[in-house]
């Protein structure tokens, strides 16, 4: 564990020096987010003297710096305590009992120099409930672990001294197919590409039919070609490791178990498009992978697979830098990711222009998912036929699924596209499965009667997540969880998503309290459809999917949350008069 103790933020001149050290030697605006992440880790907040120093050295206004801080969940102006404890709050964590564990710990560490809160899915759904302590992940929480953690916090034990076994994260690879069973990443894929030349390499990728694994399913060869064709001063390769889709954790496992392959895929891309610089945008929740990744990058430099003169070729130089995210799902959207890489608020950009023509620093940029690059490393070794003989016409090859929820064997499964939901549910030991939630909170809710459908771009597409919902669960709880997620993660830029996600959350919480009414459902449908049609980016247009699926296919789910079925709208007299009561009731202070 690398985390030292938190520094006191009361000596301004010491802060100024520390912040200067953090910025040294680049003093570069586009690193603002990376500096802020480091400062937050040191002080458990961004102290005023730090903002002042960043302002002076980076030629940014204080308001600009504060607005960046306010955008990322893991950054804060306020002091968060020696221990910042964040419980993962995906629906799978809730199903595994995270709420009561949260309350248990809150009670147990009252008065300690700590803060405790919830955060969006941390990507440990196969081994939840999970939490982050100062950014470091702890899995398999139960009352025993919570007791141990409470004791460590109350004893003021430095995180460095916490037992290692708390931080052991598992890979849980359950089913391998051609890709997981192949080995790659030792440089032979790059060698093959270099021998073939970029045109033939692109041809192999084209023939393989590989489509992006991050969600949208754009043909990878085409994306690289478009980037290569664009006028450029520089071109960039970006690996999207934001993995924010709740329920997805395959990218984490790929980095942990075969980072070499992913980086080899990026290097092949750099060779093809002619890039000298690459980034891995690693979600802040995966902080514990940072050291490992930097280690692998260093070893590859030493082996001549990165850096100058790659594999002895004089004019092929390419290097990769890891940038961290700081708790913002929207930063998985490729244009928001690029803004974030440039050190700014992760706001999606107007598209077109797409990143392949104007990406990082407005230069042509390929953004691909971790798994996409990983597959490239294999295809360049084994050939396109090896890959495309499996799968379906429009979705060739195999892909990784992150399986969690109510099943006996959660973890990573590799399947050829075209596999039915039924087969997957059986393989992982689904327990009285009533529904499967595909593609995180933004995907389809598929009821058991539709399990003959297939996983593929033609039928049911997924960014990789596959959450099983057992028969004893209430789908309304799942929807409420998703509503909170979207409200929290909307970037707030466009009208339909900013206001719509708020409205959805308000409505579902009314149903949760049994105060829903029929008028609510009509409003809800209207707002959901509006968001689908009019949102600025994929977050707002895909967020309504699960809600609309359930409203259309299983509307009785909402019945239990209805109070007055005939009423058009619900009116809460107590809430409406609360302010007035505060003033008028005896014993209360008036204005």
């Amino acid at each position, binding site marked *: 564990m690398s985390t030292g103790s938190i520094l006191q933020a009361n000596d301004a001149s010491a802060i100024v020096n520390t912040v200067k050290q953090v910025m040294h030697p680049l003093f570069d605006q586009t690193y603002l987010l990376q500096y802020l992440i480091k400062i937050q880790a040191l002080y458990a907040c961004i102290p005023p003297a730090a903002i002042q120093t960043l302002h002076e050295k980076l030629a940014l*206004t*204080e*308001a*600009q710096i*504060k*607005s960046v801080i*306010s*955008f990322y969940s893991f950054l804060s102006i306020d002091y968060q305590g020696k221990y910042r404890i964040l419980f993962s709050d995906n629906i799978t964590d809730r199903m595994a009992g995270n709420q009561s564990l949260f309350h248990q710990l809150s009670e147990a560490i009252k008065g300690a120099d700590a803060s405790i809160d919830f955060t969006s899915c941390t990507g440990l759904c196969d081994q939840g409930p999970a939490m982050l302590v100062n950014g470091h992940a702890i899995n398999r929480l139960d009352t025993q672990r919570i007791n141990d953690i409470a004791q460590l916090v109350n004893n003021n034990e430095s995180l460095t001294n916490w037992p290692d076994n708390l931080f052991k994260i598992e890979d849980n690879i359950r089913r391998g197919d051609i890709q997981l069973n192949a080995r790659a990443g030792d440089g032979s894929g790059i060698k093959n590409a270099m021998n073939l030349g970029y045109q033939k390499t692109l041809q192999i990728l084209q023939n393989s039919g590989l489509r992006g694994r991050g969600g949208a399913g754009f043909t990878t060869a085409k994306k690289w070609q478009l980037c290569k064709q664009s006028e450029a001063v520089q071109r960039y390769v970006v690996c999207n490791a934001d993995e924010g889709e709740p329920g997805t954790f395959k990218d984490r496992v790929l980095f942990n178990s075969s980072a070499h392959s992913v980086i080899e895929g990026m290097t092949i891309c750099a060779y093809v498009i002619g890039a000298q610089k690459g980034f891995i945008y690693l979600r802040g929740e995966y902080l514990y992978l940072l050291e490992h990744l930097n280690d692998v990058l260093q070893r590859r430099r030493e082996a001549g697979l990165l850096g100058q003169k790659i594999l002895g070729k004089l004019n092929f130089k390419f290097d990769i830098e890891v940038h961290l995210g700081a708790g*913002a799902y929207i930063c998985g959207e490729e244009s928001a990711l690029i803004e974030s890489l440039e050190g700014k*608020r992760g706001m999606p950009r*107007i598209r*077109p222009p797409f990143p392949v023509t104007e990406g990082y620093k407005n230069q042509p940029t390929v953004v691909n998912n971790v798994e996409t690059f990983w597959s490239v490393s294999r295809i360049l070794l084994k050939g396109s036929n090896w890959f495309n003989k499996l799968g379906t016409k429009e979705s060739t090859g195999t892909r990784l699924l992150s399986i969690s929820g109510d099943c006996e064997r959660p973890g990573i499964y590799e399947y050829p596209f075209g596999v039915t939901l039924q087969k997957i549910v059986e393989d992982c030991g689904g327990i009285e499965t009533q529904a499967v939630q595909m593609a995180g909170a933004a995907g389809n809710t598929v009821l058991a009667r539709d399990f003959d459908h297939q996983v593929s771009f033609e039928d049911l597409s997924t960014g990789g997540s596959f959450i099983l919902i057992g028969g004893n669960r209430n789908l309304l709880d799942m929807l409420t969880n998703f509503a909170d997620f979207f*409200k*929290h*993660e*909307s*970037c*707030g*830029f*466009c*009208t*339909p998503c*900013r*206001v*719509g*996600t*708020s*409205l959805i959350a*308000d409505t579902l919480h009314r149903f949760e309290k049994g105060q829903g009414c029929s008028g609510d459902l009509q*409003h809800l449908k*209207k*707002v959901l459809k*509006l968001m689908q*049609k*009019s*949102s*600025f980016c994929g977050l707002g247009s895909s967020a309504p999917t699960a809600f609309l699926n359930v409203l259309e296919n299983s509307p009785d789910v909402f019945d239990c949350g209805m109070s007055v079925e005939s009423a058009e*709208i619900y009116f809460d007299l107590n809430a409406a008069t609360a302010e007035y009561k505060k003033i008028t009731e005896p014993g209360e202070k008036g204005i």
Partner: protein
Amino acid sequence: MPAFKIDDQEVEFIPGQSVMQAALAADIYIPHLCFHEDFKAHGSCRICLVMQNGRYLSACTIPAVEGMDIINIRDDVQEQRKQLLELLFIEGNHVCPSCEKSGSCSLQSVAEFCGLLSPSLPFMYPNRSVDASHADFLLDFNRCILCELCVRASRDVDGKSVFGISGRGSNAHLVVNSADGKLVSSSFEKTDRAASICPVGVILPKHRGFKVPIGKREFDVTAINERRENDAG
């Protein structure tokens, strides 16, 4: 010149123009709030959405392309705009009868044009403040629709970056760049472009209350769809 169609009317364009820019040049009104012809397109309000090939796209962000067939004024498109406007109204606190901007307010006027009379969704009644610190100008954040016109004007024209957006999602809000966050401590001046750009009643000049009576205000005289963009002060 290449051309495309808006509601069956032929519109010529210069390559590089957006659908909105081409429409304005041809004197065709597409309702909008965050777009302004002096500034780079923004795309946040979504009011200018039009239908192309069965899909909704925002006219301010899509490049005009030869042969496009755009639907602008039709009931289903206007209905989407109405719903978006409704979201903007319930999100803030818009008490039109007592607002100095009433009658010259783009939000109000566009709503009238699109046929939104009163919202049906529950109001959110956010708790937002007023900044009256400046001698010449008032900021009433209750009415902010986050169009970022003031942000763009102050940054790109005045070269000051007095305004910015802070927070995320439903917490996104306008902030003033000064030590205490107050307008008076910023470099804002009444001659700034940002001082006259707000389409709603957030950035208001003081000492002018009801100088122009209701009924004789900008859009009372010329409806928003009949007016050229830069006619207003």
